[in-house]
C-alpha cells in the first residue's frame, strides 16, 4: 500500500521557522486536509513531502526513506505536486494538448492506447475536451486550475499533493475540481493531501490537520474536531463574559456558561485554541469622530461602468450603488473583475464607458477627483505598506500625504494604535508582523484622514480565522461609529454574511445584487452563501 510516514519534519527559511516538527501517517485512498492561514506551515509541509525543500526529520513513502530533496528523487516519479497559485505550473503560450504532451514526455510516460484512454477521460472530466487547442493564457481561472490538475494526474501519481487548489476559483469550478479528485482517488487509490483556506471544504476530507503559526493545533476527522469544541460553544452573549470570545453570533468559553449551546463549526477550533493560548481577544474600539451630516445618502453610483483590455472585457456595463452607513461586499472568483472595478472607482484605471458619480458629483477627469481624495480611504490588495519603514513611520507618511499636522499625527497614531490594538508593534517593520496586524494598521493608515467612504481590496485573503473575524468586527464598528460607507472585495463567499448587501461578479458581469436578508429569502433551501452563489452560477 502507498503508505506515507512523516516523522518529526520541520522546515526553516533562513531566519524564520516555517514548520515546527510535525509527524503524520496516511495510506492510499485517503484525503488529508491541511487547513490554516497563509504562513501557517501548510505549504512548507507539502514542499518537504514533495522533496523540493530542505527539511529536518525523515519522510517515508512507498518504502523509500528520504531526508533531503536529493534523496527524494527516487520517489518523485510517483508523486504529483501542484503548487499554490492559479494555473501556476502552466505555460501561458502552450495549448491544452501541448501541455498534456509535455507533461507526458517529461514524466517519460509510454503513450500507448491505455494512456490515450486515460488522457481522454481526464480531458473529459475537466470539461476541456472542446478546448484542446486553446492556449493556457486564454483559459479562465477555473479552467486553468482544472488543466493544472489533470497535468498533475497524468502520470497516475500514488501520492498527490495539492497546495490550495481551490483558492480564488469560482464555486462551480471548485465543485468540479473536487469531483475529479474524488473520482481519481476512488479508482486509483491515490493518497491525496490537499490544503485549503476554505473551512467548508473540510467536510470533503477524510481527516484534517489544523495549522497555526507553523504548528498543527489539532487533527482528526472534521466531525470529531467539532465534537471536541462543542462543550465550549454557545449562542452569542448579549454582554461580554470574562475570559470568553463573542464573535459572529457565537460565544466561546472554556468555563461553562449559563447560555444556550450552539452547534459549532470548524472555526470554533481556532477560537478555542486562541482562547487557550492567549486568552480573550483584546477589545477593539474606534476613534471618535463627529459625523458629517452633509454627506449625500448615495456615496457612489456607477452606471454601465466598462473596462476593456484589448478584446478582453474585464468589467461589462456594471451598475452599482453604495450608500452611507452600508457595507457592500463585492464578491467573485479571481479574474471576475473585482479589482478592476475598484481601480476604476479610484481613478487608477481609466473608465472606457459608463458614468461614475462620487458623493453626488459626476467624475469625468482627474481634476474632479482631486477634491474628493480627502473623502476616500483605500486599502489595496496585499496592503501597500513600505517594507523598509516601521509601522509608526508608515502611518506618519500616510498622514503626511493627507496633510495632517505633525502634532495631530502623533496624537492620532497613538489613538489608533491603542484602539485597534497594535500599540506594541508601532516600532516594528511590517514584514516582521503577523498578517492580521498589518491588516489593521493598513486600515488605520487609510482612515486617519477621516474619509466618508472606504474601499478595501481583498483585505482578508490569507489571514487566519481569528484575525479575519476581528477584522470584520472592526469594520462593523467603524460603520456604526462613523456612518461610513464601505466597499469590500473578497473571494471568500462565506464572508458575504458579514455584509449588508452583496454584488456578485462573474467574468466581468454582475450576476447578483441584493441585500443579504433578501438573498436568504429568495433561496430558502440554501444552507450558506456558497449554495446561493452556486445557484446564480448555474443560472448564468
Amino acid at each position, binding site marked *: 500500500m502507498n503508505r506515507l510516514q512523516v516523522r518529526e519534519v520541520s522546515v526553516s527559511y533562513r531566519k524564520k521557522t516555517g514548520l515546527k516538527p510535525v509527524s503524520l501517517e496516511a495510506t492510499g485512498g485517503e484525503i488529508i486536509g491541511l487547513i490554516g492561514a497563509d504562513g501557517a506551515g501548510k505549504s512548507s509541509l507539502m*514542499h518537504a513531502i514533495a522533496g523540493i525543500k530542505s527539511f529536518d526529520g525523515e519522510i517515508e513513502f512507498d518504502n523509500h526513506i528520504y531526508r533531503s530533496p536529493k534523496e527524494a528523487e527516487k520517489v518523485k516519479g510517483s508523486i*504529483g505536486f501542484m503548487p499554490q497559485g492559479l494555473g501556476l505550473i502552466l505555460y*501561458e*503560450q502552450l495549448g491544452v494538448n501541448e501541455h498534456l504532451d*509535455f507533461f507526458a514526455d*517529461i514524466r517519460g510516460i509510454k503513450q500507448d492506447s491505455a494512456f490515450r484512454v486515460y488522457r481522454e477521460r481526464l480531458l473529459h472530466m475537466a470539461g476541456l475536451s472542446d478546448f484542446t487547442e486553446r492556449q493556457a493564457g486564454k483559459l479562465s481561472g477555473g479552467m486553468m486550475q482544472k488543466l493544472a490538475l489533470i497535468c498533475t494526474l497524468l502520470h497516475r501519481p500514488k501520492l498527490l499533493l495539492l497546495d490550495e487548489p481551490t483558492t480564488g476559483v469560482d464555486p462551480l469550478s471548485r465543485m468540479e475540481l473536487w469531483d475529479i479528485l474524488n473520482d481519481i482517488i476512488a479508482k486509483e487509490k491515490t493518497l491525496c493531501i490537499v490544503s485549503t483556506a476554505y473551512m467548508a471544504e473540510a467536510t470533503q476530507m477524510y481527516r484534517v490537520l489544523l495549522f497555526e503559526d507553523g504548528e498543527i493545533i489539532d487533527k482528526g476527522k472534521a466531525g470529531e474536531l467539532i465534537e471536541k469544541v462543542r462543550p465550549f460553544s454557545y449562542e452569542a452573549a448579549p454582554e461580554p463574559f470574562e475570559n470568553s470570545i463573542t464573535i459572529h453570533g457565537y460565544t466561546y468559553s472554556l468555563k461553562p456558561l449559563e447560555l444556550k449551546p450552539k452547534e459549532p463549526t470548524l472555526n470554533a477550533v481556532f477560537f478555542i485554541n486562541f482562547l487557550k493560548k492567549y486568552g480573550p481577544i483584546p477589545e477593539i474600539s474606534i476613534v471618535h469622530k463627529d459625523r458629517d451630516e452633509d454627506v449625500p445618502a448615495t456615496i457612489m453610483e456607477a452606471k454601465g461602468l466598462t473596462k476593456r483590455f484589448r478584446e478582453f472585457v474585464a468589467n461589462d456595463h456594471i451598475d452599482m450603488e453604495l450608500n452611507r452607513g452600508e457595507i457592500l461586499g463585492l464578491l467573485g472568483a479571481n479574474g471576475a473583475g473585482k479589482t478592476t472595478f475598484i481601480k476604476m472607482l479610484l481613478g487608477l484605471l481609466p473608465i472606457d464607458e459608463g458614468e461614475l458619480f462620487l458623493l453626488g458629483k459626476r467624475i469625468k477627469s482627474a481634476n474632479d477627483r482631486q477634491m474628493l481624495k480627502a473623502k476616500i480611504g483605500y486599502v489595496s490588495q496585499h496592503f501597500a505598506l513600505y517594507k523598509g519603514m516601521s509601522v509608526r513611520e508608515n502611518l506618519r507618511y500616510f498622514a503626511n500625504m493627507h496633510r495632517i499636522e505633525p502634532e495631530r499625527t502623533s496624537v492620532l497614531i497613538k489613538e489608533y494604535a491603542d484602539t485597534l490594538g497594535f500599540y506594541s508593534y508601532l516600532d516594528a517593520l511590517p514584514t516582521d508582523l503577523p498578517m492580521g496586524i498589518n491588516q489593521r494598521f493598513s486600515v488605520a493608515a487609510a482612515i486617519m484622514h477621516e474619509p466618508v467612504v472606504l474601499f478595501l481590496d481583498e483585505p482578508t485573503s490569507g489571514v487566519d480565522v481569528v484575525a479575519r473575524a476581528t477584522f470584520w468586527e472592526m469594520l462593523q464598528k467603524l460603520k456604526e461609529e462613523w456612518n461610513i460607507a464601505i466597499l469590500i472585495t473578497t473571494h471568500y463567499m462565506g464572508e458575504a454574511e458579514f455584509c449588508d448587501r452583496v454584488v456578485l461578479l462573474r467574468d466581468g458581469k454582475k450576476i447578483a445584487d441584493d441585500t443579504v436578508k433578501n438573498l436568504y429569502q429568495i433561496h430558502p433551501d440554501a444552507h450558506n452563501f456558497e449554495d446561493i452563489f452556486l445557484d446564480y452560477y448555474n443560472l448564468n
Partner: protein
Amino acid sequence: MRIGVIKAYFKKELLDIYRSKLILMVYIMPSMLLILFGYGIKTEVTHTRTLIIDNDQSKASYDLVSTFEHSKYFNSETKNLSENRALNLIKQDKKDLIIIIPEAFEKHLLKGLKTSVGVYIDGSFPSRAKTIENYVNGVIYDAIMKRSGTEVDRALITINARNLFNQSLRDEDMIVPGVIGLVLLIAPAILSALLIVKEKENGTIFNFYSSPVKKSEFLAAKLLSVLLLHGINIFILFLWAIYLFELPFRGSFLLYIFSSFIYIIISLSVGLLVSIITSSQIVAYVLTLIITIIPGFLYSGMLMPISSMEGESVIEAHIYPVMYYTHILYDVFLVGDGLSASKNLLYLFILMGYAIILLTIGSLLLKKRIV
C-alpha cells in the same frame, strides 16, 4: 540523460520563444547592436590642425612634411616659430598638433644615430589625442621606411601595434569585430538567464523541481535552445561584417565558427549564473546587461587596444573572456595567422577553459529545490 525529456523541454522552449515573440529579440538585437555600433562609433579623426616646425630644412625633413601635407588626416602648415609661441597656439585652441623636426635630423639618420621628433598634441580629449598620436607615429614611421627601406630606423619611433596590420585606418575594421565580441557576450547570456528565471517567476519551475527530470536534462534542454538560436547569429553577424561593413576576411572560417560557439557557451553560462541568484525576469535582464556590457565594451579592444592599457586595466582585461575572443576575431578578419600563431591557439584554449569552468560552476549551483 533521457533524450525524450530533453526533446520535450526543447520543443516547449522553442514554441514559447516563438509565441511570446522573444524570437524577435534573439534575432533583431544582435544585428541592431552591430549596425548601431558599427556606424555609430567613430574614433577616426580627420583634418587635425597641424603646425610643423622644420628646423632641419633637409631632404629628409621635406619628405616628412610633404607626407603630412598629403594626408587627409592632417591640415598642416609649416612655419618657423619658437617652441613656446607654437605651444601657445595649442592653448589658444588654434592648433591641435605641433611637430618639431630637430636640427641635423637627416644627418643623424644617415649616420644611424638616434634622433627625436617633438610631438605635442592637444590633450583636452584624451581618446582623440591617443588617436592623433597613433596617426603621427604611423605617418613618421611610414615616411622614414619609404626613404631608407630598412628596418634600422625603426628604433627612432615607437609605433602602436594597432596600426601595424590596420594600415587603412578604417574605423569599421576596428569596431566591427569588437562589436561581435560584445554582442555574442550579451545576447546569449540574456536569453539563457531569461529562460530559467521566467520559469522561476511564473512558478513553472515546480514542474522541474517536483518531477524526476534530472538537472542535466533540464540544463541541456535550456542551454541547447540558446546555443541553437544564437548559433545562427554567428552566421548573420558574419554576413553583416563582410557585406555591409566590407571587412576583409583573412583567416579560417572554421576557427571563426568554432571559437564563436565556445564563446556562446561562455556567455550562456554567465546567464545561467545570473539565473541562479535572481528570481524575477527584469532583475535578471538588467543584471545580465550590466555584467556583460561593461566589460564587453571596455575590454573588447574596440575602444582602446588592450596593448595600450596599463596597470590594473591590463589585469582586468585578462580576467574577462572578451579579450581572448576578440583577439581571435581580429585575427580571422584582419590578419589571418590562425592557429599557427601560438597566441591564438593559447587564447582558444583559454576560452575553452572558461566555458568548462563557468558551465560547471553554473550547473553545480543550480539547485533542484526551493532555496
